């Protein structure tokens, strides 16, 4: 039964010599169908987690935990989550997230049969119910020069540095659900955000399910990730910027009804500029990638490459898009956005690609002229990633 908001009687008032009338109605809420937060305090067995931790935090598999605010691990501390643990987060949107500061670590090693799940506490969970998981490190980013740092979009925590081997811990068999709550009028949390995270970090078998914003986003850094699944991300499923240069191996993206791009990639943060010296651009190595859209008739594009990003793609399967690749940039190797130069130099290329139900393979807005064959090779040779085998047991939502 659908309840209605019943509006009470309007009260008219006059203010000064104003000609306006205040016909604003009173609010009477008769709608009991929404689960209101009661702060989770009524259950004495639940341990609430939030605040800034300056010591290690090891969660006990015998306890039940709930995140009710920003949980920030400061440099030098470690957050350890045991296999099989489900941690709920209060579904209040903003400022409910886990942040692993630069110099801190997270050890969250689940197993295929006992994955770790971070999810909403709502009985009727929705994307954006809570923030998400944020890892920060001191691996290189190109938005700053040398050892300087930038501050994160969420929580304004510092990240970036010179240590490509930065180790922010280990994520294995981890699922993040219903994340992506708005942090302000422009910023939203992602599923998992990697800010300047280095390749000393272990990331394999992670899934982001029903996220309001991006699934996985890389702000610079060198972290390597294997076996990534993103399902129903409402913004971009995989996003990189600020000179990210790790490897993404075996990634599977499935679009829901509301979505943006499969991959949105920037060579640098265009708000700030590419301030690296010597200059470098995002250049990840992406191997075994499948992106499944809603069909070419729905419009949309699978992969947007812009702002000078480079990247070496191998074995890519795109299914159901109006556009396969859309490249943006400015002409000239010395321009601020030399995306096309990357194609001409071989720094941005795709080897083995299969388009299924894709209307336009490549849209070139880089200002440079090149043939599709200079960018794509081995058309029809790709099989994508073998998600059915590696995604078995621990993932959800792939049917």
């Amino acid at each position: 039964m659908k309840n209605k908001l019943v509006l009470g009687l309007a009260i008219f008032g006059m203010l000064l010599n104003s000609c306006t009338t205040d016909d604003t109605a009173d609010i009477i809420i008769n709608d009991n169908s929404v689960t209101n937060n009661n702060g989770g305090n009524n259950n004495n067995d639940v341990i609430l987690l939030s605040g800034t931790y300056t010591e290690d935090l090891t969660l006990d598999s015998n306890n039940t935990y709930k995140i009710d605010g920003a949980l920030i691990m400061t440099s030098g501390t470690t957050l350890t989550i045991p296999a099989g643990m489900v941690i709920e987060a209060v579904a209040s949107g903003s400022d409910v997230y886990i942040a692993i500061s630069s110099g801190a670590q997270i050890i969250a090693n689940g197993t295929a049969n006992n994955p770790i799940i971070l999810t909403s506490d709502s009985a009727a969970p929705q994307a954006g119910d809570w923030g998400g998981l944020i890892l920060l490190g001191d691996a290189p980013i190109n938005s700053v020069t040398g050892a300087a740092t930038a501050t994160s979009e969420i929580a304004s925590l510092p990240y970036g540095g010179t240590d490509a081997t930065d180790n922010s811990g280990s994520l294995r068999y981890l699922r993040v659900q219903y994340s992506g709550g708005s942090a302000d009028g422009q910023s939203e949390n992602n599923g998992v955000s990697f800010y300047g995270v280095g390749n000393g970090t272990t990331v394999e078998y992670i899934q982001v399910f029903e996220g309001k914003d991006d699934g996985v986003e890389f702000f610079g850094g060198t972290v390597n990730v294997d076996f990534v699944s993103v399902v129903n991300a409402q913004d971009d499923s995989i996003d990189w910027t600020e000179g990210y240069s790790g490897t993404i191996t075996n990634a599977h993206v499935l679009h829901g009804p509301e979505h943006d791009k499969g991959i949105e990639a920037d060579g640098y943060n265009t708000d700030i500029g590419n301030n690296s010296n010597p200059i470098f651009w995002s250049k990840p190595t992406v191997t075994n990638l499948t992106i499944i859209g809603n069909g070419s008739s729905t419009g949309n594009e699978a992969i947007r490459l812009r702002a000078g990003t480079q990247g070496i793609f191998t074995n890519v399967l795109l299914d159901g898009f109006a556009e396969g690749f859309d490249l943006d940039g400015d002409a000239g190797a010395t321009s601020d956005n030399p995306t096309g130069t990357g194609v001409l130099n071989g720094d941005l290329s795709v080897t083995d690609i299969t388009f299924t139900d894709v209307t336009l393979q490549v849209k070139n807005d880089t200002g440079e002229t090149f043939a599709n064959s200079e960018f794509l090779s081995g058309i029809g040779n790709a099989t994508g990633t073998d998600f059915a085998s590696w995604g078995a047991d621990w993932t959800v939502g792939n049917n």
Partner: protein
Amino acid sequence: MKRLQLLFILFITATSFAQNTGSIVGKLTDKEYNNEPLPFANILIKGTTTGTTSDIDGLYKFEDLEVGSYTIVFSFVGYETQEIKAEVIAGKITPINIALGASAATLDEVVIKTTTRKESEAALLLDQKKAVEIKQSIGAVELARKGVSNAAGAVAKISGVSKQEGSSNVYVRGLGDRYLNTTMNGLSLPSNDVNKKNIDLNLFSSDIIENVSISKAYSSRFYGDFSAGNVDITSKDYKGNGFFDFNVGSSVNTNSADKTFFRSEGTSYFGFYNRYDNNPFAVVLSHGFDPQQADTPIDITFGGAFGKSFDFENGSRLSFYATGSFENGYEYRRGSNVDYTNVEKKAFEDAEEFEYSTKTTAMASINYKIDDTNSLKFNSLFINNASDKVGYFGIDGNGRNRDAILNTDEGFYQMNVQFNQNLIYVNQLTGRHRFNEGKYNLDWGVGYNVVNAHEPDRKRISVENYQFALDNDASTLPTFYSNVVFDNQRYFQNINDDELNSRLNLAYTINETVKLNLGYAGKTKERQFDNIRYGYDIVNANTPINNVNDLNSIFTLENLNIGNSTDGLYELKVINAYPGLSNTNRPGSAENTYNGNLNVYAGYANAEITLNDKWLFVPGIRVEGIDQQIAYDVINLGAAGNSSVVSNETVFLASLSVKYSLNEDQNLRFSASQTISLPEFKEVAPFVYESISQRIGGNPDLLGTQDGINYTNVNDVSYSKILNLDLKYEWFISKNEILSVGAFYKQIKDPVNQVVAFDATGTQRFFRTGEQAEILGFEAELRKNIIIDDETEDAKLSTGFNFTYMHTQQDLYESIIGTYSVSFNKDEEELQGASPIIVNADISYSPTFGNYKPTANLIFSYFSDRIDALGSGQLGNVIEKGIPTLDFILKNKLNSKMELNFGIKNILNPTIQYLREGTSVGDVLVTSPNGKDVTDYKRGLNVGLQFKYKF
């Protein structure tokens, strides 16, 4: 050496009338003020102690004078003293009517300042000449002549001062808001805008101004938070015997005249809004999105003033003055709105904005002249200032957004409907007392100010594929853009400022050569800020919009998606849920709040030392205790978001000013001082304001460092220390002619600049960007008569010109790491906001045709290109392009009661532009948070008529 004295000798005419006496009667008029009666002038019979003063009508009389010859001395402060020989004949009345004009000669002592009419240019020039500090003023007469309607226009006519077009920002010698102070009658004024330290001078219409002065050199009686200048508005002070006048006027703008105007729903013609008492959530649910059609765009002004005085038998006098006015304006801007950093993020090449603004002013003052030596004044001012803006961005269907979901190449569109209302209340009580025949002078004042600044129910909508709204194909429709739930939003913001301030100055004239000033000043100011915002989460991303001008039919209560159903179209989201409630479809808690406190307590002493009539030295010292505190609870700053910063400082500020009189008409001045610059609340509070394409926020590091955090290049200081040096030569050629040249130097330690922070979203924030900034400048001013009327000795044709040239330079840290971080890839830059060249010029022609005396004025001003926002990292600077302004004003005084004035403003109609420099595609037009939401637009010409009638 002449000495002015003011004697109140009341003649008792009860003495017996004898035939061997006669009398002298007459009327004094004011040459500087349209030959109106000159009250309170001194009339003395030379060689005697017999004297009187003229009354409110300028009338005086001497009765019962012995028959014989007399010399009558007429004098008035600031005016030339005249001696007239008179014969008194038995039983007869000898009439002597005389017009006094401003003096070009020096006066050594100004005894009673309150009777100086500081409205005329000549009187103000004299004041400037006499001043112990470097100061320039513009009075009501010149304001009227130049067609200046408010204080902002007034200060922009002073050398080295420029206004930022399309905003209230005033720059003195290239230094903006942060480096200025505004006072009224010497007491602090509040700011009407969260983004400003100073009040918008546009709010002070000319009918409440007696004069506006800018002191460019520091004196210890000013608050230490001073570097470029102190703007003081002296409110109109009426002491006459009664008048009433009114004026009506109307004008049209060439851009607006033919447009159908739009404004917010729920606001009134007079700029009021009355839903403040409602919970914003109720407002969102009860009222729609769509703007409404406004009235025909014809600007109107009307106002009146009234004055009356009462004399009491004991010699005291009570004067009332009240003025009220209303004016409105319609401005239409068509241009572009572009956000371009290193790439084009969002671009609307065709955008339009309608702005309907209103200003209601009321002021009442009561002046109580208790006796010759004591007076009190109470002044109460109310201003309601409102702006109603409706902006449509991407109206050609070609708007682009690189983060668009459906189409990044065309069809991005936004609408912004925004109403801002500022309610300002200023109350002041001031007093002056003379003791011991003027040996001691006590001046004091207390003020209480309140500002309520509201931005209620700002509405913003974002649409993709807007080109489908322009075609006639019903099968293709635009859809909502909903990347973030706040892409479609309603926003509410409130600011409340309270300030209590006071001043006290005791002047002690020790002897002819030394005068001592001892004083106290204090102010305590509190700001409370809060905002809340509701976002429209569109349930189905591809919800079609049948008519973008009818959003009310979409955002209905019926279409609210309640509970777990999916048959609604939208849900309302809030960032901070109300405790115990969901953040969906429920009223929420404030999104950001902050509470700022500034307490300043100061004591000072200075001495005015005169040596052999040539030298005047004024050494001074001021001690200030400054408490700054800001407590905030803001979103998206993690655990640091709910915090506070406190700073307590005591500063000692020394100043020295020296004046050397080369001769009667020429002075050489030198001044050196140490001052400070305090950060503003908005620069410190880490709250982010989001305009249509810009984000700007504060930085708590401006108040210094906190324990336990690692910083790079963040100094533990809470103010900028400033060294000021000034050298000036001035030659008062005649009573209304001047030539002056000057040079100045300023060194600002730890200067604050607005820069794009490295925080992944491109938010502009404030940083102490380097160790120091330096300014070296030169300025010159000339006011010259070209043709003089032989009879009246007034100028028929005259011209004024002033010019400022500045060189500025600041060093920049390579990188700054603190609460926020930023880097620079250059190590020095010009100062933000400083135009190297500023020019003001005017020419005035006033022929006489019998009683008909029109005045025609052509007024010009120009500032050269200046840095609007400093580029960080790879980003180039944003430059505000310099623009010239030319106005023509014709004042027609039809007779002594009626005046019909005509004006054309903004004759050159320049294009207002901001550019991002040095991108890979060259300079790119952008929008600035310091300007309007539209860039690359023309303001149009304003053509208007005004009628004034005085009873």
